[in-house]
């Protein structure tokens, strides 16, 4: 058993997620909101990798004559890699949008971007 209980990681992830959520909900600046989203994505990644490390299926194997348990998949890491790739795409498009909005409205404050108000 590893030295660190899995819930330590989960708690860090929860904290990151909550802080990210708070940032997303309360920041005036669109760039700041994007930062909150990135924090949440990081939290999710951390969660996925932690649970991959601690809870993915294992196989019994013989290595150098000794019997060991090997993790049979790398799915958690693969998941995180995809999330990172998509986060990069999201950041690129999101920031491009922010710059485009800034060009036309001279502001990136979300509270002033309420053209869809009923």
């Amino acid at each position, binding site marked *: 058993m590893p030295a660190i209980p899995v819930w330590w990681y989960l708690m860090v992830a929860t904290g990151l997620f909550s802080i990210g*959520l708070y940032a*997303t*909900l*309360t920041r005036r600046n669109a760039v700041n*909101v994007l930062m909150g989203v990135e924090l949440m994505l990081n939290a999710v990644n951390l969660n996925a990798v932690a649970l991959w490390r601690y809870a993915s299926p294992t196989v019994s194997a013989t290595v150098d004559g000794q019997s060991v348990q090997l993790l049979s998949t790398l799915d958690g890491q693969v998941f995180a890699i995809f999330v990172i790739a998509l986060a990069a795409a999201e950041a690129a498009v999101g920031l491009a949008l922010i710059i485009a909005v800034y060009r036309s409205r001279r502001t990136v404050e*979300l*509270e002033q*971007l*309420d*053209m*869809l*108000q*009923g």
Partner: protein
Amino acid sequence: MLDLNVIGGYAWLIPGFTFAAFVVIMAIIATGGSGRLAARVAVAGILLSTLVSVPLLLAALGAEGGEHGGLAAEPFVATWWSWLPMGEGTLDFGALIDPLSAATAAMVGILCSAIFIYATAYMAGELEAYDDASGAVDPAVGNARYARFFAYVSLFATGMLGFVLASNLLQAMVFWEIMGLCSFLLIGFWYFKPSAAAAAKKAFLTTRIGDLFFFVGIMILFWMHGSVDYTTMLSHAGIGVLHDAAPLVLQFGPASLAIPMILLVGLMIFGGTVGKSAQFPLHVWLPDAMEGPTPVSALIHAATMVSAGVFLVARMYPAFAAATPDAPGSISGPMFVVAAIGAITALGAATIATTQFDIKRVLAYSTISQLGYMVAALGIGAYVAAVFHLITHAFFKALLFLGSGSVIHGVEHGMHHDHGHGHGHDHDAAASAPAGGYGAYAADPRDPQDMRNMGNLRERMPLTFWTYMAGTLALTGIPVWAGFWSKDEILAEAFHKGIQSQIVIAGFVWLLLTLAAFMTAFYMARQVFMTFFGPPASEGARHAPESAPAMVYPLVVLAIFATLLGFVGVPEGLPGLGPALGNPFHHFMGYLSTGAHFESLEFSWLPMLASVVVAALGWLVGWLIYGRDPAAVRAQDPLQRLGGAWKLLYDKYRLDELYGLVVRSDPRIHRESDASEADKPNAEQLGRLVALVDAFGTLNGQIDKLVVDGLVNLAGRAGEVFSRVNGWIDANVVDALVNLVAYVNGEISRGLKLLQTGRVQNYLLVVFFSLLILVGAFVM
């Protein structure tokens, strides 16, 4: 001998040549090339097609003699290209060559060749001068029009040949519709004539009704067989599927109606035939279709396209006879309907034909009548006889139409000689008729198609006359001419089954067809006497010249066919002639694709004598009424003395009016085609009627003023008072309620509007609030 397996592989050339001709002519039109060149291309195309289709027939004849149904049961099938992959198989375009398609294709090829050559001369009027509806004269337009005619007919020939050779029902339908399109285009060839445009529309729409049924039939068959290939559907196994299929049960509440599949399929397919072959009750388009140029009438509306419907029934005959697959001649399933429709059509159209004055219109009704013969023959299981009649009729009816065209051409030229003005031919006569017409049932002296304007053409146009006589004799069933043998075979079958075997429907058919045979002889006699005999009735007839060689020679060729073709189908039982000739047609055609065989009919003198006697009687009566003094009957048709009955026939049983009433009240759809002969009520009767109506009207007026108006005014006063009360309530109670509702809604909306902040973070807040509740409920 020709090998079918070799020449069959080239069957695609048959429609291919004509289609190539079509494409080339379209290119000629697009580039503004010569119309004469286009005509030559069209003739070359069809001649090349014929050069393939006739050897194909010879090869098919040589391939005959298999043990189980011969070529019919084991036809040569060629796949031209795979069109659509469908389900397990593919839908191919290909050729199925069996006796039926080989014989019909050869017939179509020969006829089309003759008619194309004829048309090069007949349509030449388009080239010389041309004035359209606006009166503008432009030789280029005429040139293009001449070329366009040949483009259309080439495309039509493609359609007909492709249809005949089709290897599956859907391919057949495609070419069938190509024919329909060409028919539409050619009927409306002089589209600036309102009557022609209307006739084209009528023909197109009427046949569409039948085609809808046809398509439904195809879909049912595809559903049952998973294929539309003839070889699959019409093989013994395929017919077995149809035979064993569970009936379609329609549930009407507690009651249910079980429709046998054979009946359903047969009636649906037959629906297509009724439309295309102008069977009752969808026959109304064919007489109007005579608005098209005469070669078109000969080609499409007499010889080929209309017989495509009959061909379809013949092709699908195993399906019609599926109830008794091993006794193909017995009458069962949908064949009752087929027989009844055919017989009714044959007699009804023949009776109408006796009263018409337009030379082409008489032939049109004659065509309907003869198609009825074929359909009735198929209906009573006389498959071979029906196909035989299909072939012979195509030749002699095409001959008659071409002959009539020659006559019209001659009369028209005679008129030009007389007046020295006016251009074109059959299209501008009707167009130039004065609006009021020439009185009830009187002839327009400028109409070159009216038989009452003819006479003495026997001397003016001898070759036309003699060839026309050959066609007439064939049509009326005078012995040794082709029509006699084919018609006699139908009548013999009907007699055999109806009188000797006591099958009611066959007896009914025999009776009606025999009557129709009499009528046929009668109206053809009438036509011949009115047209060719007696003194000339107009300047046109007086100066009519013999037609151009290009028009006459095809007549001669067709006349030879009309005279001699019958000998391929002489009954074997006929003493002397029969054994000598051996009835090759029956041996060739007497098998079905299921392998079933039609036994040769036992020869009996009685029906043959009966038909000869009936035909002779018809001629005799015709001579008695019309032959003795043609000039007089041209002035006033003796039959007109029959009064109402004659008028009913003259108005074609007023079916058009009925359809107009039922389908749509606009009279143009059915009246315009015979606008020149609008019936006029008798003036005297009209006067009395008017007086009566006037008196009634006065009385009515008084009652109206005193009683009705009083009541109405009273009701009006009461209404006014009531309305005032009502208005007050409306303004103060109802409107107030409505406004209240609107106000409340508005206020609520004003509040709800605040939810729509347009700020993304507010929405996100709501999203996560909802998520919180949802996940919270899940976790707790």
